[in-house]
């Protein structure tokens, strides 16, 4: 699929940059035009994503097979001839999607669009805000479509600076602290990833069919094939100390993004201080990059280590689920509560990943998508109430259902989806994740313990619902207007998706299964688990 001779993935990725340039040349005072431009660009991105959805072939697996990647675009970007002491170097502009990245691409387009709607009331330096938002959009989309590690890394890092500004300039009272904390944490993760990436690069060579010489490459698919690892190179072999070290570097890099305990402390700060739309993006898309990275890079490139570390991963998942839920329960601040609920819900993704079977993996990726939509709703809901009352103190409210019936309706859908009510999308993915994990005997006990998280989630969600919407009406908020059309426009599409996927999950699940099966195959093919840390 291509427009004007340029592939659809390139359009998806670089459309926001075009939008950014457009926004930058618009005069400073034309706020309305800037908003509509950003909306049009992200809207166009959604249209493209929908076209991708209808042209996506669910039977093609992808993962480590270039043939069955879809919408592939491939061109040589950097090519440096060899010298007597260093081989030829190649970096490719290599884009493509499969069942793993496909849901994330849809999610990114959708959430970016919603984020623009949610940003409608930003009045401080709107031009800069939209430019940063669009740049961030490019970074996010690029991460999910890149199949060359170098390209992946560039996109990964491109996101940092816009995010820093978005939190730091447009955030709440402690925005400076939250922004720099986010920046430092993420950079710490990504430099470790960088080292692992370089080590992989030096260990892998592929045959150039046209010239017949072996060349070093950043091609991710090549890094997934054990046959490409050069004998005696840093990461050759299976389960070696160097491989464990590289895996650890990558894992920490991704874990910070997820965030996995104990690297989660940046998240509540960033979420609480960020403006609503940015919280939506953070929770909706950025967190998924961590788990996406683990699935795209750690698992297929280091399958034997991924297997060996299943139990630790499951333990981390358990901590995330239960600890996140307990923290959420203790919060007075509405937004912080949602932030910790994200920690808890991402734990379910990790648990599904630790299952190492198709069911668990599909549950995990599906949960990534669902958490993206549901948490986006939750943050929007917090935003609605904060815009009106300028406080997020849960105990300050009460009886809002009386004055804001429509708002209460939307909120109930989101809350019940978050606590996993059957019929809504969250239930399906959580059930898949837990069922898959339960089947894996290694982590069965941990899975059983983790179900505690579901109870806790139901408890804090319902308790919050009760505190805010039911009970005695707080007279202070007497004339609070109900949710308006713009806010509904952001929430309703998400609500429809949550409901639709809850009733008919195959809309998305069917496109993942081939890829997830392939991923499991790769991990299993690596043979029985090797011992952790020799």
């Amino acid at each position: 699929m291509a427009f004007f001779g340029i592939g659809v993935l390139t359009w998806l990725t670089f459309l926001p940059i075009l939008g950014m340039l457009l926004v930058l040349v618009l005069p400073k005072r034309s706020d309305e035009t800037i908003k509509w431009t950003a909306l049009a660009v992200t809207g166009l991105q959604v249209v493209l994503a929908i076209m991708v959805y209808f042209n996506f072939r669910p039977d093609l697996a992808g993962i480590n097979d270039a043939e069955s990647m879809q919408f592939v675009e491939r061109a040589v970007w950097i090519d440096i001839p060899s010298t007597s002491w260093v081989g030829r170097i190649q970096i490719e502009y290599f884009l493509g999607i499969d069942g793993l990245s496909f849901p994330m691409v849809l999610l990114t387009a959708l959430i970016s669009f919603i984020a623009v709607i949610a940003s409608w009331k930003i009045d401080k330096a709107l031009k800069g805000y939209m430019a940063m938002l669009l740049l961030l959009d490019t970074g996010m989309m690029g991460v999910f479509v890149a199949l060359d590690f170098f390209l992946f890394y560039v996109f990964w890092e491109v996101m940092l600076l816009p995010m820093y500004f978005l939190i730091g300039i447009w955030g709440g009272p402690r925005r400076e602290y939250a922004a720099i904390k986010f920046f430092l944490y993420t950079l710490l993760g990504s430099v470790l990833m960088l080292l692992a990436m370089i080590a992989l690069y030096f260990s892998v060579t592929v045959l150039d069919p046209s010239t017949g010489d072996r060349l070093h490459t950043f091609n991710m698919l090549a890094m997934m094939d054990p046959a490409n690892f050069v004998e005696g190179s840093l990461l050759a072999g299976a389960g070696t100390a160097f491989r464990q070290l590289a895996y650890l570097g990558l894992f920490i890099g991704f874990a910070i993004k997820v965030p996995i305990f104990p690297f989660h402390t940046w998240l509540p700060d960033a979420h609480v201080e960020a403006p609503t739309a940015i919280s939506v993006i953070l929770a909706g898309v950025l967190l998924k990059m961590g788990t996406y990275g683990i699935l795209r890079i750690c698992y297929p490139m280091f399958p034997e280590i991924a297997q060996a570390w299943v139990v630790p991963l499951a333990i981390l998942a358990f901590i995330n689920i239960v600890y996140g839920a307990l923290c959420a329960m203790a919060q007075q601040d509405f937004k912080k509560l949602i932030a910790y609920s994200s920690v808890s819900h991402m734990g379910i993704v990790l648990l599904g990943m630790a299952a190492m079977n198709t069911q668990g993996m599909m549950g995990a990726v599906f949960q990534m998508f669902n958490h993206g939509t549901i948490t986006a709703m939750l943050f929007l809901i917090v935003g609605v109430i904060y815009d009106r009352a300028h406080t997020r103190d849960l105990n300050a409210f009460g009886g809002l259902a009386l004055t804001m019936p429509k708002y209460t309706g939307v909120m109930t859908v989101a809350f019940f989806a978050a606590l996993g009510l059957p019929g809504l999308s969250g239930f399906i993915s959580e059930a898949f994740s837990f069922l898959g994990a339960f089947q894996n005997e290694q982590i069965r006990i941990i899975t059983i313990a983790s179900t505690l998280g579901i109870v806790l989630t139901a408890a804090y969600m319902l308790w919050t619902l009760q505190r805010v919407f039911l009970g005695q009406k707080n007279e202070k908020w007497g004339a609070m207007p109900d949710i308006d059309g713009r806010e509904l426009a952001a929430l309703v599409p998400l609500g429809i998706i949550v409901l639709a996927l809850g009733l008919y999950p195959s809309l998305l699940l069917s496109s993942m299964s081939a890829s997830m099966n392939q991923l499991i195959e790769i991990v299993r093919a690596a043979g029985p688990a090797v011992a952790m840390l020799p």
Partner: protein
Amino acid sequence: MVESVLQNLTYFVPETALVVTFCAVLLADVIFKGRPRIPWTIGLLGLIVAGVTAFQQTGLNRPVFDLMIVVDPFAVFFKVIVAATAILIYLMSLWSDEVKASARRMGEYAALLVSATLGMFLMAGATNLLMIVLALELTGLSSYVLSGYTKEASDSSEASLKYILFGAVSTGIMLYGISLLYGLTGATDLIGIRLALEGQAMTHTPMLLISSIMILAGFGYKISAVPFHFWTPDVYEGAPITVTAFLSVASKAAGFALMIRFLVSTATPSLGVDVMAVVQTFEWPKLIAIMSVLTMTLGNIVAIWQNNLKRLLAYSSIAHAGTMLMAVTVFSQNGVAAVLIYFVVYLFMNLGAFYLVMLVAGATGSEDIDSYKGLGHRAPLVGVSLVIFLISLTGLPPTAGFIGKLYVFSALLDAQWIWLAIVGALNSVISLYYYVRVIRNMYLRDPDSAPAPVVLTGAQTVLLMVFLVPTLVLGVYFAPLVDWAHASVALFGIR
């Protein structure tokens, strides 16, 4: 005899051009008193001629004047870097208040820039201990005077004096080391020294160790590596910004060129094509690794506490020297290539940052980080450009700084220096903190009082683009640079 000298002179064109320019500038300064523009222009033309002729030497690999100096791709690379820096500094100086304040002495300033450049050219090619000392002294003397250029400012004079004292002591120590080395080997050219050392099979190890460390002190001083860095912050803060920028790039480049040539030529025995690694005489890699870690970490950590942006950049340049030293540690073509790549990148981003600091200081009269509050909103182009330079200095893609870091880390991992790579990577996280402090003030803080506007003229914007465009373009398309660096690791006498 005469014929041989004449023949050698044809390989000495860039240096000759600088000598001629130097004399011409001095003469013009005397003849056209009160019209400093004339010597100024002559100096610029001379530098351009030197740069172009140096570039034309690409591909040569031969000794000149009986192995006093050599013309090899490695030397040519550094000469081009030094010449480019000198030319850019020259242009920057056009808008420097500090230079303009003593406009009558602009000819002097021009002459000194040219003579410093000459010294650095010689440093890049010197293969004889005598030549090395001469080149170091020429560079040093010119730099001392340059850093004290603004006579009226007491901190400038202080900088100059400190520089002289430290310079004198370090060169003294180095000279002593050199004399010991000569005593041990009986040779003054680097290749002769290597052959002598190989023949003697380490009978003089303790003495060799002492002399090596003494010589290293001289290099360490030049590239401001810890623990020989103490002069750097004060000199960098006190000197005019243009001079600081010049010292932080060109002087460091020449220092690195000399150090790499010395280490590789003397310490690497007859080697194969693939490796230049086996170091016989002494465990250089470990020593340099430790030095690089100290340099990086100290530079970065102390930079966190700085409130004067010039001083902050001084410490940051110490940290960058540490990063490049890491690549020297590897003792391989990969490592040398990484240093070369890093220098090109560093040239653009560091000069760009200094340039903006100079312009802002010219408008607001302050180099304090606090005076940058709200700058991003009132001077968008300056703000955005400075953000890009700082991000590049941190080493984030898609800027050129990332490519520099990428190649340094690549060299380290390829040689399995994993711990060093990890320390280096963590250091770039530390560096983010202080670079972002500047960004934070520019965008996240509001100005304290009504701030002076910062407006760039057209010509100033053009020069800004000369720094900015490569910083961005080299971040996404770096094949030619890497190619050039790969071709330039060839040192004379080393296959």
